[in-house]
């Protein structure tokens, strides 16, 4: 069969409409939850943990200022990232160290348990809020400020905050549980997703990029639970998509020097489905490939798909193997923007980005960036040999910075 020329639609990051959304916080159609949180603190309902300084002042959907802390962050890790694609969280931690920021990686942290809740509903409002508030309390007691790695945790915690603010009965029940645990009842001043921190540090990363990424085309999948749940509290920027879509991920990738190409099904979810990814993957595979990867390939022919949530990386990456077997037009590596950014500023593709946990072939991407994948793999194999022989117990931070 002769190779086919795939048509390119060179849209850049200009959406089809040329309209720019004018942000006007004074006329925002929704309530500023942070004000309500502070009002409840004044009434003695809970303690508010302030965002540590220095912070970055980002704009949310309707133009409100959101404080994004640079450091003294308590990392609320993600089950799926840490369990199955650990280069995702490793890259976030590595970028903190690379920029010299103080952070805390806690063991006194549970999952938000929202993956299970959205998959099986085997929980309830009080339990879900208690899990969130227990984690917030644990962060507060360390003096570090929570930053949330998972898009679903972030979205779910925004929902929990909304419910706790508006439902005093729920607040009372949850406070009773937290008090029973002997912990303080604390709500953070802001709920911050790590991709917002990435947005805040994008300028600092730009000056440290070690590769020319101008030939790299990326497509961005914005994560549903990041910006569809409690939609007002997500980062938007008039310079990115005219302020009509979230600026998370896209702004960072552009700042690193890569090209972000648009595609028509950007609003569609990834097909993760929570229950489906675990026990009904025919749906996930079909949706992830037919509505996302194939459309991206057809319209933008990207070198990489970049996103900012656990489930999206998993669904979009892992679904491609079986679909490829059917001869369909897939085969695009999928990474988080934290991994892509780490690579851009010189992180090792296996020691830090841990790409060997991903399924779809990422080596053509590395090669195009200018990274020798074979040499890097040999280096990583040497590390593994040292661990196996006992001359090194673990791969340490000192050896990857």
């Amino acid at each position, binding site marked *: 069969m002769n190779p086919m020329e795939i048509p390119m639609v060179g849209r850049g990051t200009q959406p089809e409409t040329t309209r720019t959304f004018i942000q006007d916080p004074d006329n925002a159609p929704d309530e500023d939850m942070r004000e309500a949180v502070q009002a409840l603190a004044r009434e003695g309902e809970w303690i508010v943990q302030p965002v540590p300084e220095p912070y970055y002042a980002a704009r949310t959907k309707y133009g409100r200022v959101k404080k994004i802390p640079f450091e003294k962050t308590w990392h609320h890790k993600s089950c799926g990232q840490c369990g199955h694609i650990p280069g995702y969280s490793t890259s976030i931690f590595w970028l903190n160290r690379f920029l010299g920021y103080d952070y805390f990686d806690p063991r006194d942290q549970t999952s938000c348990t929202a993956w299970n809740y959205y998959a099986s509903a*085997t929980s309830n409002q009080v*339990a879900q809020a208690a899990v969130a508030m227990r984690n917030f309390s644990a962060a507060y007691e360390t003096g570090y400020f929570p930053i949330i790695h998972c898009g679903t945790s972030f979205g779910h915690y925004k929902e929990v905050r909304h419910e706790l603010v*508006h439902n005093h009965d729920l607040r009372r029940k949850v406070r009773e*549980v937290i008090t029973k645990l002997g912990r303080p009842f604390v709500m953070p001043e802001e709920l911050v997703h790590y991709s917002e921190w990435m947005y805040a540090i994008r300028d600092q990363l730009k000056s440290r990029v070690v590769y020319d990424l101008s030939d790299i085309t990326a497509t961005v999948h914005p994560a549903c639970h990041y910006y569809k749940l409690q939609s007002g509290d997500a980062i938007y920027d008039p310079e990115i998509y005219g302020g009509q879509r979230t600026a998370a991920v896209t702004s960072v990738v552009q700042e690193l020097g890569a090209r972000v190409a648009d595609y028509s099904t950007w609003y569609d979810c990834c097909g993760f489905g929570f229950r489906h990814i*675990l026990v009904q993957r025919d749906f996930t595979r079909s949706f992830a490939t037919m509505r996302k990867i194939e459309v991206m390939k057809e319209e933008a022919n990207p070198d990489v798909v970049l996103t900012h949530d656990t489930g999206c990386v998993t669904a979009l990456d892992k679904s491609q193997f079986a679909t490829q077997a059917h001869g369909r037009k897939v085969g695009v590596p999928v990474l988080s923007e934290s991994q892509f950014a780490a690579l851009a500023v010189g992180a090792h593709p296996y020691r830090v980005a841990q790409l060997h946990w991903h399924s779809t072939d990422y080596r053509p991407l590395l090669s195009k960036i200018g990274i020798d994948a074979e040499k890097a793999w040999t280096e990583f194999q040497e590390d593994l040999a040292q661990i196996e022989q006992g001359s090194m117990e673990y791969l340490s931070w000192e050896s990857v910075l």
Partner: protein
Amino acid sequence: MLSNQYPEVPLEDKQRLFDQVKHDQRFDDYLYGCYECGICVAACPSARFYDFSPRKIAQTLAREDIEMFYEQMNDDIWNCSQCFSCLRCPRQNNPGGLITIMREVAVNNGLRSTKEALAGYTRIIYKIMTTGTQVSPDMLQEDAFPDWGPQVKEVAQHLDLWRRALPPETLHTTGLSWQVEERTMLELYTIWKLTGVLNMISELDEGLHDIMEEVMDDALEDQGFSVV
């Protein structure tokens, strides 16, 4: 359209479930009416691959169509992806949220269709509720994810070694996503017990409930944690 899918179930039983959904504290925030515009359906991933419609969910609840509601409780709600793309609704409805409530009621009442929908999923419930993390590295096994290709086998074969080649100290685990302190785990068990979540599990799978209760009770007792 009238439903007659479940004529053998008494109307009072269907009404009782409907009332439980309607009396959930979130219900009034999630349903304001329906323009029948279909925007939620256009945005819905599940609507593309299943005979499923978030619009019908909202309409059925708004009309209090008890027969159709019961049909949806059994045949529709587990198709939802819970992505909340339907929040694009111009009427500010939250069909995905309504489905979350319907699912909770379905679990609480031990509906047979719910047990069937979650049959392969119960090992995950055990994992999240007893370890505090939803998925673990050692779940990446070839027989569990055959469609993910040979890379899963590669991970499984080198799992212990590859986990030790991760710089973050908390990730040196295979049975958990990250290392969780014992006290943290006990606090999580306390939350499940105090909030009635364990009782929900008994409606879904009594055997699973008994195992989890034993694990949690033993751990709490050993550490002198009292849950009253």
